[in-house]
């Protein structure tokens, strides 16, 4: 029984092979490419880069940016930094949870959205802030949520 191959990851592996301290950059690039870091991919990286699997799993579980679960098409990141908290970001979280019927870290049934709460995204002057993928939406109230979600629901469907 041969190990599962991931030819699409070869360019990433080759770029970093033999260099030191590259595990985190490799994981970033692989996650960008695949979307998440499941067991078989971790094993593949371990074999190719000669890094113990335990170390790879240890690093992935330490850093909140890495995930071993598949994510939705879009990631909703609600900032719970101090300024956003003071400005009522928790109400935004509740609103998203209500609308999509998911909890933090979960993906909506249609696979469109994953809900995360993030550390301060550094746009405190716009608090409270919601990030959809890399785009910022600021000065929000719970009433703004449905409009933003609709935008992405439409585009996801077109994409399919």
């Amino acid at each position: 029984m041969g190990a599962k191959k991931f030819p699409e990851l070869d360019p990433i592996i080759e770029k970093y092979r033999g260099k030191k301290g590259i595990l985190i950059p490799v994981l970033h690039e692989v996650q960008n490419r695949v979307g998440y870091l499941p067991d078989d991919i971790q094993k593949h990286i371990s074999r190719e880069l000669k890094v113990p699997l335990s170390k790879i799993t240890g690093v992935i579980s330490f850093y909140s940016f890495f995930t071993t679960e598949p994510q939705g098409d879009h990631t909703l990141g609600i900032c719970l930094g101090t300024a956003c908290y003071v400005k009522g970001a928790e109400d935004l979280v509740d609103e998203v949870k209500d609308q999509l019927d998911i909890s933090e870290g979960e993906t909506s049934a249609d696979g469109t959205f994953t809900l995360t709460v993030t550390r301060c995204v550094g746009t405190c002057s716009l608090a409270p802030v919601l990030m959809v993928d890399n785009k910022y939406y600021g000065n929000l109230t719970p009433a703004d949520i449905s409009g933003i979600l609709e935008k992405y629901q439409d585009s996801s469907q077109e994409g399919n």
Partner: protein
Amino acid sequence: MDNREVLICSGTGCLSSGAEEIEARFREELKNKNLVDDISVKKVVKKTGCVGPCSLGPIAIVKPEKTFYGKLDIEDVPVIVKEHLQEGKIVQELLIEEDGKKVEEYTDLNFIKGQKQIALKNIGEIDPSSIEDYLAQDGYQALEKVLTEMTGEQVIQEIKDSGLRGRGGAGYPTGLKWEFTANAESDEKYVICNADEGDPGAFMDRSIIEGDPHKVIESMTITGYAVGAERGYVYVRAEYPLAIENLGSALETARQEGYLGENILESDFSFDIEIRVGAGAFVCGEETALIKSIEGERGMPNPKPPYPAAKGLWGQPTVINNVETLSCVPEIINLGSSWFAGIGTESSKGSKVFAVAGDVRGTGLIEVPMGITIREVIFDVAGGIPDNKEFKAVQIGGPSGGTIPAQYLDLEIDYESLDEAGAIMGSGGLVVMDEDNCMVDVARFFLDFTQDESCGKCPPCRIGTKRMLEILERITSGEGEAGDIELLEELGEKIIETSLCGLGQTAPNPVLSTIRFFRDEYEAHINDKTCPAGRCTSLAEPYVIDPELCIGCTQCVDVCPVDAISGEKKEVHVIAEDICISCGACEEVCPVDAIYQRSNKEEGDKNNG
């Protein structure tokens, strides 16, 4: 066009309020009117980094007049192009009004004129993607001076003489850090720029890297020359995609133009820089944890000593400076250490960038001289508290810092004074809170953060912060017990004393400082089971309707989210106290102010009587 330029603030704040659309419209308008061709439009309409007053975005500044147009709509663009760019007349009706007067020049805005910009100097003035813009602001002059006129020791002496101290946390003298690294015996040394800006409420490092990336490169290269390193790393948060992108392209340009790489400016000195992207772990802002993370490990701190200056990255001498600290270096080299040391207070020289956010009118980044008072920052520069609310406290220094109450508003800000007041300079996050904030809840918020971010290596931090959080959660949910405050104090002191790294050693600060200044709020939660600010909803006091004032309009019935209010039209209404969740929606809509909370009314009566 008279050589006019339009600078569009493209900091993250303005981008999310529509700066890209404004920029596109300017370009389109100029091209449609045949005022510029495709090539020169890039020189006329420029994208800059964050100008600072994020609450006024989107922003366009027209040069040479430095006219400030804020809160722009897309329809304002053709007006500015026609009247200002073509006819040379400032568009009065689009100016921002302050204190009853229209402000023309950007430097006359309240938000800008109280500032002393050193680290932020170029930001908002230059296009971060243009090395020509940076060179026009004396960019890379300090590097040239250092390479041609100064020895490494002289550079270190200059930094020591300037009195520059670290802007990212503890305030350690920068020159000393450099000296220790320079004196350490090794052929291999490293420079690390700490851009792992994890403190919630602080975003100056993001803004500097996004808006003036070449300055970070120049400063790191000077540091490398001073300490004898040939390699540098910028460790930047993954949450900052634009900063990573702008720095990456600036590194490319710097290499092409000979400011980075082999034999910089034809000298013997070679230096190069690599970006390392964090992965969402707050503890990696601590220098030994950051080093572990660059090495590809779990970011857990090590005991100090040995300090990184002796044994850092890959076990070699390493100097780690924060972004803002480094950004002061070229100015110090260009203008001299005595110029820098002439600004600020006895112990704290130069200026400091603060990220002002929360319940305050002017949110954004400001750089003010050390020694300015908290009152001047919040009320003069940032415009005070909106919605006629009272100032209650300001949280300085993030999860490692403390909450400073109104009686300290006239405190002059420097490292030592903030320390004495139970806060820290930290990275300079400054979150303003009005009367509606519950200080116990704020303390709980920070403990929740640090407890979650504790790496788990040392028990005082791992277990201690967990126990503190549990007590705070009990208090805010109405189950506090006598002795809880004392227990928090004891735990806090022990955690500070015994934790391994800066995270644990400062984690109890928000709790201890709120107990120090707002002990009565803790006592109200524990003894009276009430939240004076009405924030802790499981504790909040129900609302009641004054039967003499109620006119039976039914508006409150309509807004009540839990259907706690009953009563027929034109008859007196009643709130069921056991159902009421104290959200206050009814009080807001009541046209005759008949709805109130008992404790608030008694307080009001006392004040009136």
